[in-house]
């Protein structure tokens, strides 16, 4: 199977899904390059899961066209299924089966040849560190172990394309780091990965990402491209009374967002900048406040993108 033209694994145009009156996904255009980790960043309810389900043929789009690995979806969804792996948001393996039993079951379902199954399962048990708990029931594993097992099951049949729906939402930072190592290993080996997340630090790891907000695609690019657009528009404020400073800054025209991070305030302005106005506003609080420029991060990108969208909607 060829990965479409120009190494594009997924192409979607005008992808829309309505549930009754609710528009969960609203005319989304997507181009996911092959052999990369592509992120879907967005808050809960922004349409990430719905989009992923449409892309793997589990939900029928209300409108729009999808091509995944050169196959028309949903028409050719059955054909697609043997080439993709899907890790659901909720743990979806059989809790009353053991680690090895789950792997063996999915190997059979996914059509891994009988002669190769044992070797493949052994290999995954080794790679995913389940050597000492092959017989343990999946339901009794810790959050991080469950995640690892789910990934092992998703890659069992060596799919070209992996969909991971908020894979690390229930996992501690340590396990999350290990998990991402695995994802990059897979990308190096030639797998395309589409990962949804609402965590900024995860989004930052992706080769490329799309930001979804209320069903619409509001930004798309590499993390560096996305942050570069905000160069010169992000500041930090150090002050004794961050709450008062936040209230003062929120009223200044041109300020898109003020967020408190510990004792520091992080400020995002629009493209015109508003430094003099901000200085004035800070002076009114009666406290010492130091305003310094700071490099933009993805959270700023997210705030800028969703704010612009909200204004457009208003």
């Amino acid at each position, binding site marked *: 199977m060829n990965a479409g033209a120009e190494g594009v694994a997924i192409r979607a145009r005008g992808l829309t899904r309505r549930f009754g009156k609710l528009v969960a996904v609203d005319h989304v255009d997507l181009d996911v390059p092959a052999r990369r980790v592509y992120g879907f960043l967005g808050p809960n309810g922004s349409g990430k899961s719905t989009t992923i389900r449409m892309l793997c*043929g589990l939900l029928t789009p209300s409108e729009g066209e999808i091509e995944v690995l050169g196959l028309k979806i949903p028409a050719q969804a*059955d054909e697609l299924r*043997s080439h993709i792996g899907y890790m659901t948001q909720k743990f*979806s393996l059989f809790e009353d089966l053991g680690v090895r039993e789950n792997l063996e079951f999915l190997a059979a379902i996914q059509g891994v040849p009988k002669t190769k199954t044992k070797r493949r399962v052994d290999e995954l048990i080794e790679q995913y560190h389940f050597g000492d708990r092959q017989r343990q029931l999946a339901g009794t594993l810790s959050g991080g172990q469950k995640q690892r097992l789910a990934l092992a099951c998703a890659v069992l049949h060596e799919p070209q394309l992996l969909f991971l729906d908020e894979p690390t939402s229930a996992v501690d930072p340590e396990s999350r780091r290990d998990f991402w190592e695995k994802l990059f290993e897979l990308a190096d080996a030639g797998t395309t990965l589409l990962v949804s997340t609402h965590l900024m630090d995860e989004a930052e790891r992706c080769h490329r990402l799309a930001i979804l907000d209320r069903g619409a695609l509001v930004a798309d690019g590499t993390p560096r491209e996305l942050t570069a657009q905000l160069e010169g528009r992000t500041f930090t404020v150090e002050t004794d009374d961050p709450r008062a400073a936040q209230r003062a800054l929120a009223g200044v025209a041109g300020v898109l967002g003020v967020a408190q991070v510990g004792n520091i305030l992080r400020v995002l302005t629009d493209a015109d900048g508003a430094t003099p106005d901000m200085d004035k506003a800070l002076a009114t609080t009666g406290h010492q406040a130091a305003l310094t420029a700071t490099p933009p991060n993805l959270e700023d990108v997210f705030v800028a993108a969703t704010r612009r969208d909200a204004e457009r909607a208003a």
Partner: protein
Amino acid sequence: MNGRRLWAIVVKELRQLRRDRITLAMVVGIPVIQLVLFGYAINTNLRGLDAGIVDQANTAGSRALVMDMLATGVVAPVAQADTPQELMAMIRRGQVGIGIVVPPDFERRRIDGRAVAQILVDGSDTAVQAAAAQLMQVPIDSAAPDMRAPATSTPVGGRISMVAFYNPQRRSAVNIVPGLIGVILTMTMVLFTAIAIVRERERGNMELLIATPLTSSELMIGKVLPYVAIGLVQTSVILALGTWLFAVPILGSVLDVYLASGLLILANLALGLLISTRAQSQFQAMQMTFFVFLPSILLSGFMFPFAGMPKLVQWLAEVLPLTHFLRLIRGVMLRGAGLWEMWLDVLALAVFTLAMMALAILRFRKRLD
């Protein structure tokens, strides 16, 4: 006890109930449907039992006797036969429950004061046996009816003999145990598969499965097969206990018993699967199972004789797999009939299974929408 907290629980329960449409329907549906249905259907006073008639005498007197018996309303003629042997074959096949035999020398017997007719009864149903006894009370005139005035006739009872086949001692265990195989299989098998799909949906396994190359038929048939084995184990346990503890005979072939049980198991598993594709939660699946189970027990002929129910209810009962199974299993175990002699019921079970299975597979979509 805090009144406000208590009330909060009450309100929450009612709100949740209101949003659970099927449960709500059951709250009203179970009492209304079941009461109306069973109120009319359950009738222990048997009338209109299917009867076969052999009148070898074929005289005015013998025809009058048969008419008198029919006039009681206990039996309704559904078949004519030429010989008692033919009649017994009909009983073995379950085609009729009662046979009336008038021998060729009826007129002579009438004058001699000997028994003038014989009633053959399928004793495998004790209720039928009891009802048939009423036929023995039909009065017999000793002389030709045109010879004497009706007013002075002196009817004599006891001139009609009765032979009960298959369970002459009227032991109820003999009647109940074969049926119990069916009831137990209906109860357990429907529930096994009714929960099967819903459980995976509730636990999230389904989303994983439908994203794989697994087909609907593979999933559905794969869910059914293991329970067939379990069902056959259950059948063996009941058969063994029935034989050892209650001395229930197996007159027909044991293979036929297992074939009939296998058919019922498949029918019930397929029905369960269909329920499973419809139910939203395991609780709903159990409710729907119960909704099918109750009529199965009451209308199939297990508890109350099938023959005693109104025609409309009988048609309804024909839809239930247990009705057909009961006929098969009683035929095989108690009357020594072969399955092929009751092919209509075998066919009914097979058609039911295929229809339910096809519906379940069609209803199950490999999609989330």
